[in-house]
């Protein structure tokens, strides 16, 4: 087992290397100038431009720039933002908790809605409720997040005045309250996938012989549902969980803007609009790392859920 974990970690490192090279390469190709980002259109002299290029190492060959960057990145030194002068890592660490809280909150809501309704639909296949919930999930799944955000803002902020429309609040209670509508937006856009996976997984499990035998033995109610339908039905959901979590992180781009949440996505958008290369690289690498780690955890968790799955990925 340790060998498998080490192998997966090595693959993770290789993936991070590819990710970092891609991010660095794309930014080299992208239009934009560091000098512009630093001086922001204010007057400049040739000497000043030269000094900026030297200070940020732009007068060195591109491979050298990359090697210097990767050497510092390994030590978690991503440089300073061209625009604000802040260390990239501290800027990321400042907003990372908000983004993770939002993504986890949204993921929890999506999972609660998706699994709950998915099981319900599976147990009442082709019923009126099943069709309604499936229809609702399709509507939310295909509606852009910014439209759902606006509708939620209108209902819960303007009409009911229950939730704030912007910001993240101070303190845990206030933070939870501020993030509820953004998380609900994420949850509503993401639950449809979970509902479908859960429904399909549970229906597939219900069709299995072991389920029929369990019923024949007199197992009923929750025990039958949890042990013989939901647990095996969850395996495709776990596989999809990394996709859903990644979706939560990316959909946050729209949600953070709509609800004025200062998270990683806002930081990234702003960095792109200012060609703030260190910030773009830092955020990309960070988000990429999170996604890779989530995938790693999902890979390793298969066995916990289904003992039939060996670590070489095949069913025993």
């Amino acid at each position: 087992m340790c060998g498998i974990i080490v192998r997966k970690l090595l693959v993770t490192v290789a993936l991070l290397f590819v990710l970092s090279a891609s991010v660095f390469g794309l930014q080299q190709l992208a239009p934009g100038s560091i000098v512009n980002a630093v001086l922001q259109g204010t007057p400049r002299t040739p000497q000043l431009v030269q000094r900026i290029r030297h200070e940020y190492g732009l007068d060195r060959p591109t491979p050298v720039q990359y090697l210097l960057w990767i050497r510092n990145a390994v030590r978690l030194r991503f440089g300073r933002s061209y625009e604000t002068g802040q260390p990239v890592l501290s800027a990321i660490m400042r907003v990372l908790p908000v983004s993770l809280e939002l993504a986890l909150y949204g993921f929890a809501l999506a999972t609660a809605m998706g699994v709950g309704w998915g099981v319900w639909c599976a147990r009442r296949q082709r019923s009126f409720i099943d069709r309604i919930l499936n229809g609702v999930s399709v509507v939310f799944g295909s509606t852009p997040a910014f439209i759902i955000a606006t509708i939620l803002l209108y209902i819960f902020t303007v009409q009911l005045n229950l939730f704030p429309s912007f910001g993240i609040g101070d303190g845990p209670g206030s933070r939870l309250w501020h993030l509820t509508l953004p998380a609900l937006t994420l949850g509503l856009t993401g639950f449809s996938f979970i509902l479908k996976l859960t429904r399909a997984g549970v229906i597939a499990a219900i069709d299995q012989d072991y389920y029929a035998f369990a019923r024949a033995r007199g197992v009923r109610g929750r025990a039958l549902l949890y042990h013989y339908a939901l647990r095996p039905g969850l395996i495709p959901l776990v596989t999809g969980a990394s996709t859903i979590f990644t979706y939560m992180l990316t959909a946050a781009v729209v949600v953070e803007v709509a609800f004025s949440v200062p998270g990683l996505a806002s930081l990234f958008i702003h960095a792109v609009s200012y060609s703030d290369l260190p910030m773009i690289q830092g955020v990309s690498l960070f988000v990429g790392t999170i996604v890779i780690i989530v995938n790693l955890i999902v890979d390793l968790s298969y066995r916990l859920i289904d003992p039939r799955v060996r670590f070489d990925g095949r069913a025993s």
Partner: protein
Amino acid sequence: MSRVHDGLTPVEPRLVRAAGGASNDVRCTVQGAPGLRRRDFLRRAGATGAALALPPLLADCGGTSIGNLMSVTWAVSGGLDSLSFLTQTSRDAELNQTLFLEGLLQLDPQGNIAPWLARSYQNYGNKTYVFQMREGVTWQDGKPFVVDDAVYQYQFNLNPKIVNAASGFFQGFVSSVRKTGESELTIDLAQPLEVFDYWMAIDGSYIMRRDQLANGAYKSVGTPGALPIGTGPYRVTGFTTNSSVVLERYDGHWGPKPKVKKLTLVQIIDDTSRLLAMRSGQIDGTFDVPVQDLRLWRDLSDVEIETSSSLDQWWFTMNTVKAPFDDVHVRRAMAHSLDRAGIVASVWGGNGQPTTNFLPPQEWGELLTVSQINAFYATLPQYPYDLGAAAAELAQSKYPHGFTTSILTTVERPQQALICEIFARSLAKIGINLNVRQVADSDWANEIGNNNPRELGMTINDYPPIGRDPSTNLAIVDPSRTGPNLDNISHYVNKSLIAPFDIIHRGSPSSSAKIAAIKEILRTAARDVPYLPIGIPIYALATKKHLRFNNFSPYYPFSPFAARLGPA
């Protein structure tokens, strides 16, 4: 199975299967309330908790309880990346920086230069500026502000080893900063610059404390961990990057005391979210009312909308020394292809006015009345939207069958792309293919600022007001001001303009001489069409009805706006 919790005594510790068989339930009692089921207890406890928690949570957000102006929540659309003017120079950033930072000069609500930390100043030949410093000024921690602080800041800006957004202006134009008396500071320029005092008033003269600049401290000042200390009427007490700034009135400020004691600036980038926040009463006001959505904002109850001409002239620039724009017939064809009224209607929702001249009447200062100016403008060559006339002009040019060119727009101002697309559709009808490309704001700004005559083609820009002296705004056609970092970005040189500009640059010409010179400049420029004026949108301000913003004008970002807020 026993489930004993503090305060709960199970009276029937047995599993009770509910009718549907799907849930477990434990019947419990609360001491003093026999017979209360555990689920009911939890439900009531939750409801009570929520009832107790909600009021403070509700009070935590928004600034609606401001009857006595103790607290105001104001929405901004950007500018909260950092609170340092060394890294942030946008107009959004200026809006918050003027609240806690001050410079030697400031633009007042009428657009006039007002002495600020300097109580007066003298201009010697547009090359040497001598400032007499105000006394009794203190930093927001109570320590006295002295002339050495100003000298330190400006010499810091001049230091060639330090690179920041303020360096460019100082290192480009200033040669020395000296203390020339107990309360006197002298700035020498490398070359005469008649708009230097305007620059100092709107952009380049903020002063921060020495300990926030020295020993590399400037790199982190303006972040949540290093809040800036200035001399302004408000001090920063809290900052969350890209989210909010909390400012409290600094009662030791030398100037008049603002009525608003606590001001929270919240960043709401999305226009719709800002509208909904205003509608729900969670913000008390904003300057960021999108003019194209003005009707929606006017429909809000309990909200006052005030508008003002922005003087924010939008225009296209054509590089007159680079093909194909070096051909005056091409430029005239472009002018006839520009549907100004259509752009104002579709891009700004009709909330603006098309312009045919790059010097709006309001920027003539006191020289002429608006009706006199309009009468003069009517005598200038006109280029109404007429594709037939455009095609005829193009036929006389070196490119009778058209050409292909491109233009950059900034992602920060999506209206630029809209305007360019509308223009491109008109131009396509006469054979001119205009490719519109959106780029990062810094890259767009660089193209405008760096204005390399070999590289620059056509640009779109908007020119916010710098002051009420028309000579400053005429610099865009001044033959002596072509080149990188200078105002004449069309590289337009007509030697017949040298004489009238000499009159304007001559210090204090008589009004009649100045008027005649300006008219000559505008007449010549109207014939040669180096710029295509598009229009001027309005500025709109939204406030709750119990608030009033005094003297709303296009110059609102350049002085501490919260000092002008008061009860309605």
